[in-house]
């Protein structure tokens, strides 16, 4: 009896909080398919999705490399201050994205320390580089957070064995360390991707939200909602595609992950 009550409450909770809103969105999209389709195929929407994908690809690539580097330093580094670094990596999780966006505006803005870029024709703010920077900042922790415990768990013996067998540091990394942490990296990449696709607050502040230029897909949803004048079909349609992208990434991970390797 208690077992069922527990299951029921878990399912009920998920339905209410997650599935309900998603289902409603899908439902509304289906109600006005033509309106949704028109909004999705609008050149400005297509441009917004292209920008979101570009930003996501760059942020994921950068944070995968540096996430692994940070994890290696935190777990294996022989330096002072790795505890500090460990805490530092979590900082973006604690900070509101709005603050992240705002701090970038201050830093690269006309009176900021890095104002040199903006004054010399390297557009950072209200351009793609700013959006990329904001997204990288916000998605920084995910790969490192996934890799750190796995690195701890595998220990150093396999790497030492590889060294006695003649493998250089680089060969040891590629042949032993990376394959051992690969599922943690994949999981981190999935979380980073999902977060990058969905980022709104930080991007909203640094991008300037210029339609067809610096407007990402999430910003476009917000626009479609703000200026709907009672016609919500465009907002539903774009939201649907965004949600589908995120879900696809999660499904891909489940498909590719071997059965025993996930906790």
């Amino acid at each position, binding site marked *: 009896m208690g077992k069922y009550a527990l299951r029921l409450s878990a399912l009920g909770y998920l339905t209410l909080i997650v599935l309900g809103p998603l289902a409603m969105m899908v439902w509304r999209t289906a109600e006005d398919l033509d309106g949704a389709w028109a909004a999705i195929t609008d050149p400005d929407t297509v441009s917004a999705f292209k920008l979101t994908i570009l930003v996501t690809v760059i942020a994921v690539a950068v944070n995968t490399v540096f996430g692994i580097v940070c994890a290696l330093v935190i777990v294996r580094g022989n330096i002072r201050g790795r505890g500090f670094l460990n805490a530092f990596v979590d900082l973006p999780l604690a900070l509101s994205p709005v603050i992240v966006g705002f701090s970038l505006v201050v830093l690269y803005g006309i009176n900021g320390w890095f104002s040199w870029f903006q004054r010399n024709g390297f557009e950072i703010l209200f351009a793609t580089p700013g959006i990329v920077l904001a997204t990288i900042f916000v998605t920084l922790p995910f790969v490192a957070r996934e890799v750190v415990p796995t690195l701890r768990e595998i220990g150093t013996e396999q790497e030492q*064995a590889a060294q006695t*067998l003649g493998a*250089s540091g680089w060969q040891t990394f590629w042949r032993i360390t990376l394959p051992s942490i690969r599922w943690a990296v994949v999981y981190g990449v999935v979380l980073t991707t999902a977060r990058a696709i969905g980022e709104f607050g930080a991007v909203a502040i640094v991008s300037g939200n210029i339609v067809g230029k610096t407007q990402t897909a999430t910003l476009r949803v917000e626009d479609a909602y703000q200026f709907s004048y009672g016609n919500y079909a465009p907002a539903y349609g774009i939201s649907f595609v965004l949600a589908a992208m995120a879900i696809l990434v999660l499904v891909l991970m489940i498909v590719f992950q071997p059965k025993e390797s996930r906790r």
Partner: protein
Amino acid sequence: MSISVQRITKRFDDFVALDDVTVDVPAGSLTALLGPSGSGKSTLLRIVAGLESADAGSVVIDGADVTGRPPQERGVGFVFQHYAAFKHMTVYDNVAFGLKIRKRPKAEIAERVHRLLKLVQLEGLAKRYPSQLSGGQRQRMGLARALAIDPAVLLLDEPFGALDARVRAELREWLRRLHDETHTTTVIVTHDQEEAMDVADQVAVMSNGHIEQVGSPRTVYEEPANEFVMTFVGQAHRVGDAFVRPHDLEVTLEPNGSTREVMIERVVHLGFDVRVELVDGAGERLSVQTTRDQAELLELAPSQIVYVRPTRHTTFT
């Protein structure tokens, strides 16, 4: 190829793991580093392999000073207590690893790996993953992997420590046979004196970062250099100023001038051997190792009063 460890010192913060240690391992020998945990034996082995660096002293392998060289350039085969199997690789790829790093032709690698797998009796399991092997099989794979690079010396760090008693005994006998065939200079670290005596032709007894004695198993057992070696290598009782091994105590039913009166607490049958646990009037405990026949002849039983006398003893000054 010989190994010569000269005046090695190693500290971990305040702890002195090795204090001015010098030891020679003759070419082609099988030497055991024997000592309790914390004696520095594993640290010494890791320093020979280059996995740990010494604070002072030098390591010479086959006449060449390798002290400053990284493990990759020392040509040592290392076997770890917990196998250090490459979990994401098959048995074949584990064994082939060192050869692939050396960029040997594929055909040569295949030929050599299969020969090694045959040697360690894992021929049928080449495509398995380490998680599908038993502990004993994993360690045999670890040995094959270390032997694949044709190492100058083979170093084993408590290789059978994580295995159950039966597999241990099997593997140790097998290691001895392997060594007799290949004559690769081998150093095995162990805390198990029986294992050291069984497998090695030279034993270096260590404690607290020092070498206490180096000699053949028979020498360290029968002519221990000091109290530590006497009590660590085999059992020993202190009788007055002297030390006596349990099998060097004679049990009689009648007293004679030099015997001590004791009471039997327990008679433990260990197959051929019988261990008789005794307590004397002062409450001091002793044990005597005797044969089953002898125990039956004297009809030894708990609560019986008997008399013991050392037939052989050792004193240290």
